[in-house]
């Protein structure tokens, strides 16, 4: 079975390029979750995240030989494509996107559904304000938090995705965490 981990990403891409549908499907299923989550955490919108996921795998389908194992992991390659598409979407949507006042169809509404316990609500509210704080970060800081803290990429991988030096990743992450803590403190003060 091509779904098994014994098939490397390189094998799957090679087979997919030769027209093997099962190989493409296995590759997609292996990586779609991380690409989708990255796009969702960067944009805050399910529609954008799905659009970006679709675009990333269309790029892979069109030119699977673009991936060079010497330049990093497949995950880093996919995050790199996703990042470009997300930033383009954010630029396009900027006039309409109000991060702190999420629209009605935002996935946060789905998340909050069916959570009626008081304790759970408090925790959910805290997570929700953290989500808003992440989305309110400038994209350069947001992406480093998403990649390093949410997707647990190491500094070198994140640097490869972002196309910058490892030192830049480290300093941006430090700054981003400081901004988040500041925002969370401000949110708590407002709640009190």
């Amino acid at each position, binding site marked *: 079975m091509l779904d098994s981990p014994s098939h490397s990403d390189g094998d799957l891409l090679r087979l*997919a390029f030769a*027209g093997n*549908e099962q190989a*493409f*499907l296995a590759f*997609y*299923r292996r990586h*779609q*979750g991380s690409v*989708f*989550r990255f796009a*969702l*955490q960067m944009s805050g919108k*399910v529609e954008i*995240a*799905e659009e970006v*996921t*679709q675009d990333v*795998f*269309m790029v892979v*389908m*069109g030119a699977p030989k673009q991936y060079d194992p010497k330049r990093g992991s497949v995950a880093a390659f996919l995050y790199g494509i996703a990042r470009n598409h997300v930033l383009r979407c954010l630029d396009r949507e900027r006039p309409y996107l109000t991060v702190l006042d999420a629209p009605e169809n935002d*996935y946060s509404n*789905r*998340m909050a559904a069916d959570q009626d316990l008081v304790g759970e609500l408090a*925790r*959910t509210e*805290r*997570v929700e304000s*953290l*989500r808003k704080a*992440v989305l309110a970060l400038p994209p350069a800081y947001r992406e480093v*938090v998403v990649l390093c*803290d*949410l997707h647990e990429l190491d500094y070198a991988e994140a640097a490869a995705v972002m196309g910058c030096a490892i030192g830049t990743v480290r300093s941006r992450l430090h700054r981003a*965490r400081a901004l*988040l*803590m500041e925002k*969370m403190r401000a949110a708590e003060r407002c709640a009190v």
Partner: protein
Amino acid sequence: MNENERELLDGLRALDAKEPREPSARVERFLLAQFRARARRRRLTRWGSAAAGIAAAAAIAVAVWVAPRTLRHSPSTISHGAPRELPKSGLPDVALPTSPQPRASNAIVQADEVAASFYPTPDADALPPLETAMVVRVQLPMSSLRWMGLPIAEDLSGDPVQADVLLGQDGLARGVRLVPSSLRREP
């Protein structure tokens, strides 16, 4: 990492755990449809290239088998009237040397066939100078030679005749050479 940062990371992990993990099935369906369409297009392109390659190879094979000769033989006349001179600009420099050359393909092409010269086609003067040439042997009704300005007797006009057609680099005919052996009639 201090206590605040640890708390922040715990919060971020909780955030990650609460979010949707996968796109909807619509994305997979769309991508699968695209993949199939691409695979179909690729198969068609491959088939088209292969067919074109086979056709080209077949054309070359036919040309080589039928008349694999470049123009390295002396001009001579045949019995049907005097041939006109080909315009100087109409033939390549390598064509028509003064002495007959022995040919490896003599088994296929008889010497007397090789000895014939080309009659220029009526519009040869108007065509660009010959750079490369190919000779293709065809079978024509004798009557079609009137187009060349040859005096063909009425009683012969229905007879078939073999001729070599000199094609230029643009695929247009520059001259025609009759194959004398095909002109001999049974008594």
